[in-house]
């Protein structure tokens, strides 16, 4: 048995040596070498594989010798998994989808390849908001792939039954939240719906930012370094008091999580539903009659709509920078490629040329039900769209606010909960400052 000990020491030493050798290999920068010209590019995202089949097919047809292999990571684990794999310099990821508000943090951590040489092209081919969102410290880190907005969907049958004239698709005739609330209650009383109003992502900052912004409450982040919480403004307080009350009074249901909400509207149990462009097709199979109107605002406030979506970035540890770049440019800068990314999922392409071709089609996504969607989209993108704030602390911000929204939804006092959020954000950001 004594002979075993030296053998074990040798084995452990070999193991350690193996680890060191391996990590220094994978850590070698690939910046000077763009890698092979042909092969397989790995593309990682969180959407179903079908979403990217058209763009991959089109790209492979134009680039013989290059294949694209798509890997899907579940949405809820996407950010955490990517964080771990990127920090381990995993060269198994070439191109990946980047949630736009996270660009700053990903860039600050060195998880994105600098794409600043494409700056001029991005400036002309995308909206100002998209251009800005993908920048951090004056450098371009990712290219916008999609854009989004929000609509107010309404149950036509229920409103007719409750003798409520539904909102129109005209942005000039936009309803206020107060009007939605009154009409929603009428639909609950005599329109046969169980609930009056429901948000698609009831605990997501993306969806609730417009409420506070509409009342002049700001984004919730301020300061030169964008690391000072500002969620206790009058606008935020008022918006959250209203939001909490919609659940307390039964206008909106508790206990149903983000993206589980669509089927509730599709089943005819809600009078009003706030959702994205993807719903224009998803609700097409619903048995109820519905229509679409612009996102409401608060009486005395201004109309504000959310915007932004996913961008594409390149992993600096990728050993195929050249091929990765070609795919990335095709899927974003090339209108044909960009259009192909949105042919399966109903999402607005970010490339302006692609958008021009895409938007008019939105009116007919679900027959007469989606009439007016194109004009709303065009109007919002030009007049009311407000991006999520650009901050290296956005990830913590989104998490802290998500928990605050959940608590407010479940009955916690909004003022004290926002105060608590401020404290949590101050603590979380102290280490970044």
């Amino acid at each position, binding site marked *: *048995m004594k002979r075993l000990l030296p053998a074990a020491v040798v084995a452990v030493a070999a193991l350690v040596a*193996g*680890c060191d*050798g*391996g*990590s220094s*290999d*994978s850590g070698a920068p690939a910046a000077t070498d763009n890698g092979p010209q042909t092969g397989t590019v*790995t593309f990682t995202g*969180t*959407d*179903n*594989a079908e979403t990217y089949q058209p763009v991959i097919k089109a790209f492979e047809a134009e680039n013989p010798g290059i294949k694209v*292999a*798509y*890997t*899907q*990571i*579940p*949405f*809820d*684990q996407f950010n955490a*998994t990517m964080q*771990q*794999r990127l920090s*381990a310099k*995993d060269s*198994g*990821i070439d191109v990946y989808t980047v949630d736009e508000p996270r660009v700053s943090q990903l860039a600050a951590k060195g998880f994105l390849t600098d794409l600043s040489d494409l700056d001029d092209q991005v400036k002309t081919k995308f909206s100002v908001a998209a251009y800005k969102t993908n920048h951090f410290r004056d450098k371009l880190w990712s290219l916008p792939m999609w854009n989004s907005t929000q609509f107010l969907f309404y149950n036509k049958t229920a409103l007719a039954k409750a003798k409520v004239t539904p909102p129109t698709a005209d942005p000039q005739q936009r309803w206020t939240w107060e009007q939605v609330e009154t009409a929603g209650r009428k639909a609950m009383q005599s329109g046969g719906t*169980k609930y009056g109003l429901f948000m698609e992502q009831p605990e997501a900052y993306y969806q609730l930012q417009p409420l506070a912004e509409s009342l002049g409450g700001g984004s919730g982040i301020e300061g030169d370094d964008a690391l000072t919480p500002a969620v206790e403004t009058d606008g935020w307080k008022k918006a959250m008091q209203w939001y909490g009350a919609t659940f307390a009074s039964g206008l909106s*249901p508790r206990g*149903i999580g983000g*993206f*589980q909400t*669509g*089927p*509730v509207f*599709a*089943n005819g*149990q809600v009078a009003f539903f706030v959702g*994205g462009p*993807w*719903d224009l097709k*998803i609700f097409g*199979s*619903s*048995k109820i009659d519905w229509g679409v109107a612009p996102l409401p605002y608060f009486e005395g406030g201004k109309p504000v709509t959310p915007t932004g979506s996913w961008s594409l970035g390149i992993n600096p540890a990728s050993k195929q920078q050249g091929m990765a770049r070609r795919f990335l440019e095709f899927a974003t800068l090339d209108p044909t490629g960009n259009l192909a990314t949105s042919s399966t*999922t109903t*999402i607005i392409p970010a490339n302006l040329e692609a958008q021009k071709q895409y938007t008019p089609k939105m009116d007919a996504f679900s027959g007469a039900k989606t009439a007016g969607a194109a004009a709303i989209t065009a109007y919002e993108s030009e007049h009311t769209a407000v991006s999520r704030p650009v901050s290296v602390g956005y990830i913590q911000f989104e998490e802290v606010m998500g928990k605050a929204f959940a608590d407010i939804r479940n009955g916690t006092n909004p003022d004290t909960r926002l105060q608590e959020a401020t404290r949590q954000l101050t603590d979380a950001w102290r280490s970044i400052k």
Partner: protein
Amino acid sequence: MKPRLQSLSLSVLGGVVGILFFLPLLWVLTNSLRPGSETFAHLTLSWRTFFELKPTLHNYSALLSSDVGRATLNSILVSAATVVIGLAVCASAAFGLAAFEYRGRGLVFGIVVLSFLVPFDAIAIPLSTMFRDWQLTNTFTGLVLPGIGNGMAIFLLRQFFLGIPAELVEAGRLDGLGWFGVFRWIYLPLSRPALIGAGLMLFLFQWQSYVWPLLIGTDAKHILGPVALSNLQGQNFADYGLVFAGAVVLTVIPLMVIAGFQRYFVQSVASSGLK
């Protein structure tokens, strides 16, 4: 009268608790037989919430065209490989810890026991970095390896092996069996219940594995059941009928395995350490 009343109320309580456990499973099963658009159609609790008058197998046929079909086969392959290789490794280790007397045996055993007290998730991240360096990402080897050496399985088997009478081993040795022969022809045949128990544990560890496959990358060829199930819940939309059908499939397979072997499992846990 009193004890009867007591036992009756205990039975009722047991029944209620049983139903409470069963209802969510029934809800999942019922909704897997409904179109996804009707998942939330019966939110108010009624008998219709848990029963479907017009069941459809549409969700199950749709599963075949998703990744879940392939992922289920991959999960079966990975779990089966883990059980076979894992049992060989763990039983050998347990044999070494039970049949031989040597200095430091207690220490080695202590380290093994300690190893199963450390939650796997806690070491998964550094381990995945090592696997990446060894080019084991997106390979079945990378998926199987962490499940093979299971401290709990070694512990169970070792305790069981300790109960095997030394006389049997001596008789075997006198008849000319080598140590491998003793292991193969005496220990293994006598330990079938413990081997089944340990095998079930190894199987379940792999079947439920979720964080690990995500960490070392699951491309379409190496995707496993739980990851594919989670992927069904898209970013903007989830077809809950499909998700529930996937959940039922991924539950039924281990259920069949456990139901088939449960007798041995109880026996092995009950007898280990007592003999």
